């Protein structure tokens, strides 16, 4: 469903700030796979996500979605295949528009936007039934401006909007990190339910190792622009957070040794 091949990206090339964000990344997700991505700061997790989403262009390499090369497409042009939820709960919704208007914008993904009515009775019925699945009571507040909602509610709404119009890929960029623990748990639970219900191929970046182990069907660890660990569902089930940390130290240490030896 998603195929990333030989992806490399260097920021500020040729300057003192030069930083290799990605070193020849290869990754393939089959349909319905839910991959959690962990790694230290600057490991390249978000860069991978932004490459798939189209915010960044790679220096070399290709991105394919459902067999279609999208490397050269701008972010809005490939948005018809991709649902995104951002870390900032404010980023995924338009605050001065109502809940139903936001839902209508999301429903229009990949369609031509003409002079038809943005919110119709039929669409409204659909929005109500979708919102009901969040169990936040938002279905009774269709005409409330989204800016009036709390961070947790907005993030839950963003998640719904990113998914209900049937994208091929779902990208989650630390989407629970800015929420308090209770709301984070709620959004994580909703994520699990929604991904399962729509059988979405998902790439989720997180800082929370416990979350990375609990959610998803596959786990990837990144460090220094490379994928250093790739666990399938079975291996992942046996892992604990201390195991993961131990594994990380081991691989990082080995790599460091290699580098030092080479120098």
């Amino acid at each position, binding site marked *: 469903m998603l195929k990333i091949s030989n992806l490399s990206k260097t920021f500020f090339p040729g300057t003192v700030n030069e930083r290799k964000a990605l070193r020849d990344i290869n990754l393939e997700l089959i349909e319905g796979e839910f991959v959690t991505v962990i790694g230290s700061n600057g490991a390249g997790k978000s860069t991978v996500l932004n490459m798939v*989403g189209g915010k960044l262009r790679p220096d070399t390499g290709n991105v394919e979605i459902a067999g279609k090369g999208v490397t050269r497409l701008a972010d*809005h042009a490939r948005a018809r295949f991709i649902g995104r939820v951002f870390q900032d709960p404010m980023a995924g919704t338009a605050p001065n528009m109502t809940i139903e208007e936001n839902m209508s914008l999301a429903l*229009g*993904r990949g369609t031509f936007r*003409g002079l038809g009515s*943005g919110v119709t009775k039929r669409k409204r019925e659909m929005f109500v039934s979708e919102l009901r699945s969040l169990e936040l009571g938002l279905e009774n507040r269709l005409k409330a401006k989204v800016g*009036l909602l709390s961070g947790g509610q907005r993030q839950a709404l963003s998640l719904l909007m*990113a998914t209900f119009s049937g994208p091929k890929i779902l990208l989650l960029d630390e989407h629970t990190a800015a929420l308090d623990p209770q*709301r984070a748990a709620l959004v994580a639970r909703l994520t699990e339910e929604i991904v399962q219900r729509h059988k979405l191929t998902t790439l989720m970046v997180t800082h929370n190792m416990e979350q990375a182990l609990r959610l998803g069907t596959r786990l990837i660890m990144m460090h220094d622009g490379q994928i250093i660990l790739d666990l399938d569902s079975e291996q992942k089930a046996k892992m604990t957070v201390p195991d993961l940390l131990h594994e990380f130290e081991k691989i990082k240490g080995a790599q460091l040794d290699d580098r030092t030896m080479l120098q």
Partner: protein
Amino acid sequence: MITAVELGLIYAIMALGVYLTFRILDFPDLTVDGSFTTGAATASITIVNGVNPILATLLAFLVGSLAGVITGLLHTKGKIDGLLAGILTMIALYSINLRIMGKANVSLLGESTLVSPLRANQLLGTWASVILMFAGCLVMVALIVWFLRTNVGLAMRATGDNEEMIRSFGVSTDNQKILGLALSNGMVAFAGALIAQFQGFADVGMGIGVILIGLASVIVGQAIFGQKFIWIAALAVVFGSVVYRLVIQVALNAGLEVTDMKLISAVLVVLALILPQWKGFSKFANRIRIRGKDAPATEVKEEVGTNA
């Protein structure tokens, strides 16, 4: 006084155009000073050459929107700052307007215009023409409100509200900005064409400071009447435009010169921007405003159903 209201209602169409860019797209578009004259010039020169005034006024709309498209292209594809892109088009339009007219001003004296039936029946300056023009403004407001609720209208509003978000739903924000600027400047040019017919001439300097009038109308109107719903925000612009004219009229009656008008406009905009920040004013304004069901923001912050 009635003439001031009439002028306010015609300028309201220009102000509605400014509302589209300034509030909906969150884009401060200075093209307006040029495109207003472009509309007046296009309509005048075609009317003088025997074109039907309705057709001439529609043509003004088209040429004006072309100016908007150019500003939009400069900003989105040329990556020029929005303010500068507007200024560049505005300055370039000054020369183009002179080219269109062939000289610094064109008289419409004795020509058949959209206003001449009113003039012939001696309706100008009466409440009858005020009602007629207000009806015209209502049609404009209805069109804008309708448009902003269509699929493309929603996408345009989202472009001004959260660009990142609407891009993630597959909308080219560049195209939305260009479209918005085209519509806005089309309306501004349309208003310019009407003003030229109302006053009986087009002049190359008539657009100078028009952006300030537009901003004053939007800001003053919405400071007084609010912008809770789109239809209120749009109607507020129309009323703001009339209020602006009345303030000008009062200032003139108080002994100020016509040449002082630009200063008054500027002071008015500054007041309208600063006053709402004071507590006493918001209390006063809240009494006039129409409030929605979900009004107080604090009341609905709590979440329900978090069984985490």
